[in-house]
């Protein structure tokens, strides 16, 4: 019965690739997402609504659309992609790095939303108090705003990580479905469902996905609780 939990090297390779893509995705968007979140939460400027909408666009578009746009922009013949390819020798289309970019685009709005909410809930009075004690705005950000927004930022990280693990449409459009390169868990499950006798292998990967998702949620809960304790909210 438990044999189903003994995963083959091929299955573990799919898992490894998915984790690699998701981790790089989170690392890629972390800093820019927090910066955009801070700007949206704290500044008012001309074009803010436009920036806000642009950031959220991937959430409301069918994922194929950003995938196709990425292909047009960053494909080897694309507007930007051809320079990356010809000058730097970097090729994103049909590589795992391209899968990272595709899932980053899709996960970015989730990260921004959580971080923005968290930052806007930080009491501005505390930031002013810190400034009156001599801290310039950058130091205020790192010593007050960021630590107090940390629980929400962690939530955003986990959401982005999970979104990246589940990314399908943009990935398959931009980087295809290449074994050991861009075939992440959802793509592999999809591939199995397309072949005869693929149900059992697909089911095994489904179990793997569910375990991963559950693990991510539990870790996020623990981290969030810890972060809340750190900022003195453990009494709530």
């Amino acid at each position: 019965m438990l044999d189903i939990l003994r995963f083959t090297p091929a299955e573990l390779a799919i898992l490894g690739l998915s984790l690699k893509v998701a981790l790089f995705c989170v690392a890629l968007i972390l800093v820019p997402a927090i910066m955009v979140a801070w700007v949206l939460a704290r500044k008012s400027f001309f074009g803010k609504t436009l920036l806000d909408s642009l950031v959220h666009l991937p959430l409301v578009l069918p994922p194929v659309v950003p995938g196709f746009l990425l292909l047009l922009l960053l494909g080897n013949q694309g507007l930007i992609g051809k320079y990356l390819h010809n000058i730097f020798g970097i090729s994103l289309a049909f590589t795992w790095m391209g899968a990272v970019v595709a899932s980053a685009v899709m996960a970015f709005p989730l990260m921004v939303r959580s971080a923005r909410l968290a930052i806007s809930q930080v009491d501005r009075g505390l930031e002013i108090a810190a400034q009156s004690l001599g801290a310039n705005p950058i130091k205020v950000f790192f010593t007050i705003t960021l630590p107090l927004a940390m629980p929400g930022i962690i939530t955003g990280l986990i959401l982005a990580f999970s979104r990246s693990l589940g990314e399908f449409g943009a990935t398959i459009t931009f980087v295809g479905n290449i074994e050991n390169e861009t075939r992440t868990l959802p793509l592999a499950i999809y591939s199995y469902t397309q072949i005869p006798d693929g149900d059992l292998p697909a089911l095994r990967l489904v179990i793997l996905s569910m375990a991963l998702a559950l693990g991510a949620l539990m870790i996020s809960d623990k981290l969030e609780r810890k972060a809340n304790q750190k900022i003195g909210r453990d009494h709530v």
Partner: protein
Amino acid sequence: MIEIKVRLKRKHFELDASLQLTQRVSAIYGPSGSGKSTLLSIIAGITRPDSGRIVIDDECLFDHEQRINKPIHQRRIGLVFQDGRLFPHLTVEHNLCYALHFTPVQKQQFKLEQIVKLLEIGLLLKQRPHQLSGGEKQRVALGRALLSSPRLLMLDEPLASLDDRLKSQILPFLKLVADEIKIPMIYISHSKQEIMQITDNLIDIRFGKVSA
């Protein structure tokens, strides 16, 4: 010496202040809505007035015509707020020491031990702000502002959120700071009785108009 001459116009409110504070400790008194807190936030650099000039000890902090407007963190004005505003993620000790990171050692006027002793907060150092009572919070907030070695200390209704018993516990400390620490101080309150215990140099503010 502190010279303030500022104007600020908002939809339903107008502030017109012209002050020359020569005594070390002064109190600004007025009912709520009279513009006390607005005046304080203008002096601190939180709110930008429409016009005017603010000079403390020959240093210009704001001058509308010369386009001078020093940011809050460069004004060296210590603030104590009604709600304390202690940083919830830091211990009392780290709250107190926060400003020391931004103050060059030669400019530091007080040592931590000195302030801790003065305000009797030694037993609280390892605690978090949410573990403190209202009165303890205000003592820590006062100590934190002092440790930033300010050229001016401004207290905005520091006792307003405390009950009478706690007020009477804090007032002696405020008096102590006003008397013993040689920092210019502006005390803002709507309670004349409270002010009289700190200083008799009283400035009235009514309907956004104040001059002295």
